[in-house]
């Protein structure tokens, strides 16, 4: 592609067209059966979550004290919990919490972490050094312990849960956004843009951002799985969303205390968590295989 035969500015002309790479990766991922199965699982759960208000047979908070701890069957397809609430309905509604908490946490982490990484890499020098050191401190702390401390201290509720999970995921996003930025800023088209007097903001948004998107997105899919797991773990420890809102981790926790008489109380939500994390991992895995240049060359 030569600059002469193109009406665009030189800097834009030399920038590789990123959407094509992303499309290619998607096409490759689609041909991978694992990815497709994973996508189907995620889609099914997403559908259940979105349609929960219409397809759930009962109100997830409605207690029926006479119908406590019923085994699966009859009026309650998956049984009832210690308050006589319908497990199936709670699972469906719980999917909403799992998904919305993880999606928002990862979105936040992606935006903040990505921005930190990009800016830090772009500015470079001492600023970069200090920023990355801070990120390293964050990174070196086990995410569950970090989440545990944040939620326990701020108090367990939806917003704090999202903040805590986002906090644990910022550092990896900063790292993954920084590395390509460092490489890109030395590249011809960025230098050209700078020579043409483009503002830093414009260079960052028009030239660097499109080129790191695919890597950050793959990372986001993989971290989504982690986020679902951390959310469930925190709820299991008792630091989840406030009752009577159903969460899978919280349901597993309640079920665990009744494990001797009613094992399904703990196993059903446990399986739901497993399924969602597995689906996300399968999708993320396929996407990574498809976008990782090292693996592509294999």
């Amino acid at each position, binding site marked *: 592609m030569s600059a002469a035969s193109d009406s665009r500015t030189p800097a834009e002309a030399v920038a590789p067209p990123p959407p094509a790479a992303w499309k290619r990766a998607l096409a490759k991922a689609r041909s991978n059966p694992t990815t497709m199965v994973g996508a189907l699982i995620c889609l099914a759960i997403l559908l259940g979550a979105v349609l929960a208000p219409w397809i759930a047979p009962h109100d997830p*908070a*409605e*207690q029926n*004290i*006479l119908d*406590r*701890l019923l085994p699966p069957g009859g009026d309650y397809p998956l049984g009832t919990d*210690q*308050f006589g609430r319908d497990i199936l309905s709670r699972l469906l509604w719980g999917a909403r919490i799992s998904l919305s908490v993880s999606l928002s946490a990862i979105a936040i982490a992606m935006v903040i972490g990505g921005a930190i990484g990009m800016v830090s890499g772009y500015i470079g020098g001492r600023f970069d050094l200090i920023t990355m050191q801070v990120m390293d401190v964050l990174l070196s702390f086990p995410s569950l312990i970090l989440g545990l401390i944040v939620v*326990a201290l701020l*108090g*367990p*509720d939806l917003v704090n849960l999202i903040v805590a999970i986002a906090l644990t995921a910022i550092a990896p996003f900063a790292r993954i956004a920084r590395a390509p930025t460092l490489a890109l800023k030395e590249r011809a088209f960025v230098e050209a843009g700078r020579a043409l007097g483009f503002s830093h903001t414009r260079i960052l948004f028009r030239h660097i951002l499109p080129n790191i998107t695919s890597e950050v997105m793959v990372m986001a899919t993989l971290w989504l799985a982690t986020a679902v797991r951390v959310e469930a773990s925190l709820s299991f420890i*008792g630091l989840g969303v*406030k*009752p*009577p809102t159903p969460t899978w981790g919280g349901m597993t926790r309640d079920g*665990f*205390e*009744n*494990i*001797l*008489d009613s094992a399904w109380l703990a196993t059903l939500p446990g399986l739901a968590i497993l399924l969602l994390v597995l689906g996300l991992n399968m999708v993320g895995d396929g996407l990574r295989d498809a976008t990782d240049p090292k693996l592509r060359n294999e």
Partner: protein
Amino acid sequence: MKGLRAALLGTAFAVAATAAAQAQSGPTLRVGMAAQDVGRLDPHFAVSTIDRVVVAWMFSGLVRFKPGSIDPSEIEPDLAERWETSADGRTWTFHLRRGVQFHGGFGELTAEDVVFSLRKSGTAASSAFAADFRAFQTVEAVDSHTVRIVLRENVPSLLGILTNYSGGFIVSRRAVEQRGADFVRAPIGTGPFALDRVTPNQSAELVAHAQYFRGTPQLGRVSYRFIPSDASRDLAFQNRELDVNYGRADQTWINRTRQVPNTVVDVFEPGELAILNLNTRQPPFNDIRVRQALAHAVNRAELVRFRGQDVAREGQSVVPRGYLGFAQQPLLPPDTNRARQLLAEAGHPNGLTVRVIHTQLPEMLTMMQVIQQQLRRSGITLDLQVVEHATFHQQIRQDLSPLVYYSAARFPVADIYLTQFWHGRSRVQTPTAVTNFSHCDQADAQIDAARVSTNVEEQKRLWAEAQQILVQNVCGVPLIETLLVFARRDNVDYGYQLRGSMSLGPVITEQTRIR
């Protein structure tokens, strides 16, 4: 390095204690408790159920509740053989039993130890129960085995304060002075069992005190094991890894445990009365119609059904039943329509949302969820702010929650409950605060008059009047009383019938044995 030294010192104590304990041949009783760990083992700081249960095995008071009973009329001599009262009831003289030996070779109990202990109990810096001793003027030793207590004013039950419960436990003066801050992990008392060692997060190990004044205990050791998860503890009990197990006050649990072979489930007093305390000084509950609406929205019978007939019973007043001075009150019946009507009259035709701070402690959270559901039917939405337990206790004392779910048992005399929860002096956010979350003070005159009255009938009449006033004002909505539950293997014989225990767990005495 100081930390290391302290650690070594701690070990040294444990070793010393082991050495002092004589070789025991009796069997070991294994008790499973829902706990992470014990706290400070100074009996005057034992406020949690976990700590109360175990200090009662290691310490004695001047008098004691008859084992298995919490009836104040059955209080009997313990470290004191006998006592006299002056005509005005303000001067009490206690004659100590002779030859009572402390654990670990700390010698014979004397009046000095008793004076020291009671003064320690009465001082805020060294005791969690100092407030109970407010009426004490002086405590002094008359001779080596006689103690005299002089009171400022009459108290409804002086013997109650001196029992083997809360501030009444007697410690060794020499041990406290020698060990200082370390006393909390190497306590010395006169009870049937002495502390051998604590393995953090695992267990507290006790050995029989061979010189116990009622005779050498039949058990050799008691192992008090901390297992927070109900499921694991139950399973360990079923697998015969435990002899005694802390139970869940829940019908499902009791029914299932009763089916385990060779198992006895003991359900015993005191009942913990749960009350919804309503802040009468703040909206929305400063309007009595809203308070009445809430009272109509609560369905006690359903709460009892939820908990189980064996462990729960309906609350009948703002004082738990069975307490000296308790008087049953007519409470507002469950009536959803009436509740909605009252709310509309009070200007909430579309219902009401209340932001409530609540603890994440599982048992309390479970109950609150049932109540949340009941209130929802009458248009009252509880927006639960669930915080961890320490924060809950702090924030409800800062008036941050207009509605406070509080469940408590106290010494079984109406005065204590009425004073702590319903007397103006105990209002939270005041210097003398205890647990008056409703800010009600309408019954102060009756409560105060009853306390100093020397006429029992007069006292009872005043207490009944106070309860009537508080219920009429809907300062709080009584919910249910929940009893305590422990399971044991049927070869465990406590040595008495377990009908009640102020230490909230079975008292292990010298007569407790494994058949």
